[in-house]
């Protein structure tokens, strides 16, 4: 069981449903979904025409640094925005301004950055399409014309770890770090590694951020052809569920050891108790029917947190809206909780599936919901899908059973992650 306490002192997010936790909670409460027609490209005639895009995208305003835009991409802009907001809320800048030089250096060396990243997009490589077109399949001329045609910053703009590097540079954080590119569990894994580093005394503070922007034509087409996308909406656990809907954005938290937070008088929003991670070993796309690895991930998260299933106040399910993921997730939940399930809900009907960023965004929103003592409802629910009955879901908002939430993520490769959070009273 984890002994050293890891507290949350800042949070930030951006997604189709809003740009701060309160706004997203408000959208969830009023039944608003950001899922709508895709604007990124003309989808007339496309099988995939909906997503939860971030509207009114202005990269300069979001990052506050136009010059930086030469070196980063849309997904990085989201990651930096969320991380900036979390660090702002944690009040690092004013605390550091008062430190002497030696203490400021110690602060920097003991502050880590842990990132969950989508790992890239197909569009990253489109910078080469004009060159390939001009070279007409002739590699010799491709090589010769390279420097004159392709943006010299191509590789740097495409680094999967750009947010890690730039958050560090922007905020002067120089401690332990990681950039997890493990599909949809990336965010929760980054959170787990950050919390573990704090518990092992490898750092005293850590920024955790996960970001993704996968709403692009080639990606959407592949997901559609893999049978993973819905044309009508994201109806997790509902009889109408027939696939997922993509979202984009980022979620971020600032974590500190309890001692470090107290030392600087930071207000505490909550606590990360423990997490678990397990795999099904079936390959990239198959999902095991009985939800075995998810059940094991939840069990180890509970054990690491030193609690039992009865302590959980609400469950934020992965609920991606694909029939086999929903059904196996339901089985895993029943296996762990038996018939006495705490309120279970999901958020993806509102802001879509953010892939690598999904878990962190949902952790940030879950924390805000827990603090408001709300289990947001799922207005997309009608009749429960086969195997998804008796999950203690609701269309209406409810009150959590306790101040603890369990957040779940599942990704390609049969990966499953679970995390337990505690909310501090507001």
């Amino acid at each position, binding site marked *: 069981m984890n002994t050293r306490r890891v507290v949350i002192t800042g949070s930030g997010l951006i997604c189709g449903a809003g740009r701060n936790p309160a706004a997203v909670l408000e959208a969830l409460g009023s039944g608003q979904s950001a899922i709508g027609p895709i604007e990124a490209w003309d989808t007339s005639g496309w099988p995939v025409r909906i997503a939860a895009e971030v509207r009114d995208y202005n990269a300069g305003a979001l990052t506050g640094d136009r010059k930086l835009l030469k070196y980063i991409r849309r997904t990085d802009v989201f990651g930096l925005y969320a991380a900036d907001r979390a660090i702002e809320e944690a009040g690092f800048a004013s605390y550091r301004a008062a430190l002497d030089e030696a203490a400021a250096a110690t602060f920097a060396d003991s502050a880590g950055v842990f990132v969950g990243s989508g790992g890239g997009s197909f569009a990253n490589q489109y910078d080469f399409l004009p060159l390939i077109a001009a070279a007409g399949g002739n590699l010799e001329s491709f090589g010769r014309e390279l420097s004159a045609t392709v943006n010299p910053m191509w590789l740097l703009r495409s680094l999967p770890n750009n947010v890690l590097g730039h958050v560090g540079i922007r905020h002067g954080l120089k401690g332990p770090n990681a950039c997890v590119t493990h599909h949809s569990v990336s965010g929760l894994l980054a959170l787990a590694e950050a919390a573990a580093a704090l518990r*092992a005394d490898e750092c005293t503070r850590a920024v955790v951020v996960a970001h993704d922007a996968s709403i692009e034509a080639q990606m959407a087409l592949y997901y559609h052809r893999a049978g993973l996308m819905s044309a009508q909406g994201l109806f997790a656990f509902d009889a109408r569920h027939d696939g997922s809907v993509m979202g984009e954005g980022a979620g971020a938290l600032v974590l500190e050891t309890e001692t470090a937070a107290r030392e600087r008088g930071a207000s505490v929003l909550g606590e990360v108790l423990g997490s678990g991670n397990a795999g099904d070993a079936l390959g990239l796309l198959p999902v095991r029917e009985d939800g075995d690895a998810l059940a094991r991930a939840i069990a180890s998260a509970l054990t690491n947190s030193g609690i039992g299933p009865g302590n959980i106040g609400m469950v934020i399910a992965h609920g991606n809206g694909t029939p086999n993921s929903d059904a196996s997730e339901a089985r895993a939940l029943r296996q762990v909780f038996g018939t006495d399930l705490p309120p279970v809900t999901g958020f993806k009907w509102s802001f879509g599936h953010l892939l690598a960023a999904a878990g962190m965004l949902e952790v940030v929103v879950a924390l805000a919901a827990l603090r408001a003592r709300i289990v947001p409802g799922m207005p997309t629910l009608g009749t429960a899908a086969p195997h998804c009955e008796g999950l203690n879901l609701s269309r209406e908002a409810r009150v959590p059973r306790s101040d603890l939430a369990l957040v779940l993520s599942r990704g390609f490769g049969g990966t499953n992650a679970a995390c337990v959070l505690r909310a501090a009273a507001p």
Partner: protein
Amino acid sequence: MSAAPRRVAITGLGLVTPVGNDVASTWQALLAARSGAALINSFDASGFPVRIAAEVKGLDPAAVERAFGERKLLKMANRAHRFALVAAAQALDDAGIRPTAATATRWGCVVGTGMMGVSYDELSEVQRDAASAGELEPARLLEAPGAPADPLVFCRSTANAGAALLMRVFGIRGYSSSVHTACASGGQAVGTALKLIRRGEADCVLAGGFDSMINPVGLSGFCLLNAVSPDNDSPTTASRPFDASRNGFVLGEGAGFLVLEEWSAARQRGAHIYAELAGDGNSLSSYRITDSHPSGDGPIQAMRQAMRDAGAALGDIDYLNAHGTSTPMNDRSECAAIKAVFGEGRHRLAVSSTKSVMGHLIAAAGAVEAAVCALSIHHGVLPVNANLRELDPDCDIDVVRDVPRKRRVRVALSNSLGFGGSNSCLAFRHPDEAEALARWRAS
């Protein structure tokens, strides 16, 4: 948490590198300083400003098929995944242990992976089918017959496709992760694996890295940044870390894997232990995305942290496998870090960069070089820093030059420093030293 901290044994190694497709041949090439660099063979690089690289050569298709077990899975694998599966199978065979139905959930898998992307041929199909003028026309993707319609292209290019294959083929059902911090990826993957076993989330971990950027797009990225050596006429001496005339790195490819086990369990089953994976240091330079700080700030903290984590003093370190890319800036900055950490003691620390022979394996580099450290402890021999003619005066350290050096290594360090500013330093301890230290601590 139990009272005695859990320690980690390295019990299996696997390598696919530009100088050998297994551990023995790679080690021999490192000792003989037999360079893996040559004119690029896998595609027509004649128009590129840089036409040399260190490619993996002659990987036996039968070995690849054996590693995958099922033929159909081969279609899910790109070039780097093939390297990974072969190296991982070698490591497991070497360790003499595999996940079983009873142990699968206690096995983890942590890998350093390269950047996501499709191959040049597949990208050319996207261009042919949907971007005839060089600009993607999304509407045309719908009817495109080639790569955009091929679900296997999607599978191979997914960021965690390699980890998914490894878990499936070897039946690993516990904690898994893919990490990418550019050239530090492999080192950070091994460091993450160490912590998983320490904190009890796994008893055994298959840890490693794999990458292949020797293709028109990958090579282009480094050419555009002027990061690779342009010595097209002398490929075998193009990578010369710490030499005064160095002018860039040589792009390599390959995979390195380690089997890590909780120490007492490894001892109990009578496993051969190459070394203890004793410590991990991990820092962020937060200076510039591609430049390293001239003072060595960043790597300094990583090295100190790795030694502290391993409970090793400066005088215990006998060997450093340097990041040593052979770019003017990296080697100067890394040497500044070595000087800052070791002071005058640096003259008793033997240093070599095996990138002088293998080239730079990018996301695989840290894992491959971790295996090299384990081998140098095991054999009591330090591999050569090849091609060193005139030591850069800024690199005033004890470089293992000309011939390998016999030396009993008590503790070795391995540096991996990445674009984006991530720095990884791993510490390895001789198994006898590890046992002695454990006895001393227990008494």
